[in-house]
């Protein structure tokens, strides 16, 4: 990275925005100096000095108005209840009622899932998770450099608590008659989906960067699924997975499954959605990984081949470390997008059977459709927390990576 990438700076102005080196007036335009009035030059110079805020401000404003403020307004909305009133509507303040409903009240099984009694397996798995987290925290604390209760410690405690709670919810809803709620279903969609998307994307990318005739064709074709509107993909897969009229009907019937439909089975329905999701988003992983693989410096690879390394060794010791930072960022970006999944559950299964395939956005969406604006905002906020939680984990992982490399 080019270290010298910032301009020489002079402190200036109330915001202490350091601008680039502004040459003195005389050096600016020697020829036109005579025609220019000094006032015009002063104005130009001021505009020049304001260049920095001008460059950044539109973007900042756009984000402020359309992301930050609506978010705050939404936070307020999540503390209210919507009512139709004469000539308009009203938002009646109800405090944390909407959130209480999600965690403790009538929406609990919808949101968190239906809890099953603990079995031995539950305790074992949960115990393992707790032990891992405790070791993690203990190691951090015993690290001599870190003594103060700084943001690092708080962050890690939050992390441990968050992961522990999720583990608790998962172990109690995944088997023994428990049912997953929208939170856990969303997490399943995200992580299982990304796992397969990455593996497939990587494999395809590695095959495509080889010196194969016709690889350009493959690259163009592999890009296609990502380009189709998600609603379109959802309907397409609904058609494809129809076991009575779709193209795979003969196969389905040959397997003797005529009377069985995946829509009646919670995991069957989720698998169908995962298949569609993986089909659509593998190209995203694919193209970025292709770019990454192609921009690897060639010398180490050639040297390794000359030295007699086989493919696996080349991959493990040269390629993988090179694409690791890119992969992490890629997964982070895809992670953020994946949490917002809605079109597929909405179109393919209407969220069913029961509520088995509903994602968090879908949950918020049906609340909103019923004009339960407060409830919708509450679910959306929980989604936001969840996304932020996992993104922070990843961002810190990435930071650790880049720090360790130096």
């Amino acid at each position, binding site marked *: 990275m080019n270290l010298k990438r910032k301009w020489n700076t002079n402190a200036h102005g*109330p915001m202490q925005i350091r601008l680039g080196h502004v040459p003195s007036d005389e050096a600016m335009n020697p020829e036109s100096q005579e025609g220019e009035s000094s006032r015009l030059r002063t104005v130009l110079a001021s505009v020049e000095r304001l260049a920095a805020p001008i460059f950044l401000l539109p973007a900042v404003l756009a984000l402020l108005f359309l992301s930050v403020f609506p978010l705050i307004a939404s936070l307020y909305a999540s503390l209210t209840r919507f009512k139709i009133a004469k000539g308009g509507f009203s938002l009646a303040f109800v405090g944390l009622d909407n959130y209480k409903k999600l965690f403790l009240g009538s929406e609990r099984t919808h949101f968190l899932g239906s809890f099953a009694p603990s079995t031995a397996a539950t305790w074992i798995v949960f115990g393992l998770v707790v032990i891992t987290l405790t070791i993690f925290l203990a190691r951090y604390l015993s690290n001599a450099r870190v003594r103060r209760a700084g943001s690092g410690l708080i962050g890690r405690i939050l992390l441990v608590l968050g992961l522990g709670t999720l583990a608790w919810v998962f172990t109690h809803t995944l088997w023994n008659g428990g049912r997953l709620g929208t939170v856990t279903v969303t997490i399943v969609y995200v992580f299982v989906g990304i796992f397969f998307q990455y593996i497939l994307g990587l494999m395809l990318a590695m095959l495509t960067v080889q010196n194969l005739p016709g690889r350009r064709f493959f690259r163009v074709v592999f890009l296609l699924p990502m380009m189709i509107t998600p609603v379109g993909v959802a309907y397409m897969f609904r058609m494809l997975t129809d076991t009575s009229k779709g193209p795979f009907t003969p196969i389905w019937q040959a397997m003797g499954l005529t009377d069985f439909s995946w829509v009646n089975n919670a995991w069957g329905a989720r698998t169908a959605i995962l298949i569609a999701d993986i089909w659509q988003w593998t190209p995203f992983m694919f193209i970025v990984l292709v770019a990454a693989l192609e921009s690897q410096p060639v010398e180490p690879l050639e040297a390794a081949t000359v030295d007699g390394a086989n493919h696996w060794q080349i991959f493990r010791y040269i390629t993988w470390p090179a694409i690791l930072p890119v992969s992490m960022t890629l997964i982070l970006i895809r992670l953020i997008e994946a949490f917002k999944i809605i079109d597929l559950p909405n179109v393919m299964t209407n969220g069913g059977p029961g*509520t088995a395939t509903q994602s968090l956005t879908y949950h918020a969406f049906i609340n909103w459709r019923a004009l339960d604006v407060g409830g919708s905002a509450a679910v959306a906020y929980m989604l936001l927390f969840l996304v932020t939680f996992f993104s922070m984990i990843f961002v810190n992982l990435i930071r650790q990576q880049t720090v360790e490399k130096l």
Partner: protein
Amino acid sequence: MKSKNTLIRVLSVAIIFGVLTTACGAPATTQAPAQTEPPASTEAPAATEAPATEPSAATEASGKMFEGVTVNLLTFVGPQVAEPLQRRGPDFTELTGATINVITVPNSELYQKALTDMATGTNAYDAFLFAPSWIVDFAPAGYIEDLTPRIEADPAIEWDDVAPFFQDFNSYDGKVYSIPLDGDMHMVYYRTDSLAEAGLEPPKTWDDYLNVAKTLNGQDLNGDGEPDYGSCISKAPAQQSYWWIWSIAAPFIQTQGSSQGVFFNTEDMTPLVNNAAFKRALEIYKETGQYGPPDETNQGVGDSRGLFISGRCALTMDWGDIGPLAIAPDSKVIDKVGAIITPGSTEVLDRATGELVPCDATTCPYAVDGVNYAPYASFGGWAGAINAAADDTVKDAAYAFLSYMAQPAQSNADVVVGATGYNPFRISQFENKQAWIDAGFSPEAADNYLSGIEASLNSPNMVADLRIPSNQKYIQVELDRILAEYIAGNLTTDEAAQQLYDAWEAITEEVGRDAQLASYKATIGAK
């Protein structure tokens, strides 16, 4: 010193900015793609004369020219229901000069789109074609226009010809708020040939229904060598389940006439769901799934309708659409379909004990041959309402169009065609069997179909949709979700009934029990 300079500069910028932007005038209403620009296909010719192609259609009440007026009409995506509007729009434009802009959104978004539009004062839509049960939310809030004076001044709409039930259903608090274009009633349709072959009678009770379904399930009903289904009743979430269940439950719960009500206890507004009758209905509903297609839980009524028309089901429950659809050219069951009033029950609910008791003269005063029927006019039929906040000329034009669509000349032609999605709602449409025969029904089929509807409409024990405030929450949110969970096997019958009871009680408490009770009693005509 420097800060003072900055301050002066900032002030000047601010002032210049303020002046400039004020001078530039109102923002983007002019940037909007010209709202009055009519879409190409409905471009109004500069009509200086109105060729009165259909004399009865030239509505006097609509006045003469609505030249240049555009009416934005919101409904859901067709082709059903929207198509006749789109088709007749240009005709109306020729007659009056007004352009009808039909805007469609997915069915599940219709309610909130309409409500958000009016509640936030956006008023992008001038008229709606939606479910009349929603007028109980919109009318008290003053969102939709009271149409009674216009109807009284409009002889062409022949309001008296509209069946009394539909007149009531489109009114609230004694005033008419919407104009019906369609009449909705559940009926059971059966394959006359398959049942005759098996020696079975069309089902009179729900037990009969299950019996017929079980017997015919797995037989080949359409001659293609594949086994077919005994019963096709769709069960997907967010579709129609919350209507089917009431067709099943109503005959168990309501016996003393429409003013007894089927949803709530008229004394204290407690839901009538945590009792033996509703639980039996749940079980019946679930059991029909055993005799249906394996992916029935992901099907909507469109799918089950399609299956019946292609000959794959022995029985189905549906609105009136199957009648005309069955005689359409691409139907595989032409002249093989019979219609019957939705099955009733020989056991009914004793509201005091919550248990089922046999039908006799006191418990079932309206029973026919010992069977209590309670036909469910679910959904009530697509009806047109007008946004009260629209301009007066626009409102007049919108009313004129709705009236035009509802008048016998147009309506009679539409209800006999299955693809329109409009079903009969005028008395004359039941009585004039010739129109049906002309459309392709055989006389027997016309007789059978229309008498099925008539029997339902004339029943004193008819059930209408729940029409109290927040009915959408009761039915389309809570009931739908619990039904979906129940069908998926995640809840037992008792759990489902209990959860529904609790959920409905929570809503009633939130909205106000007394207000809801008063509203409920008003809508069913209870004392």
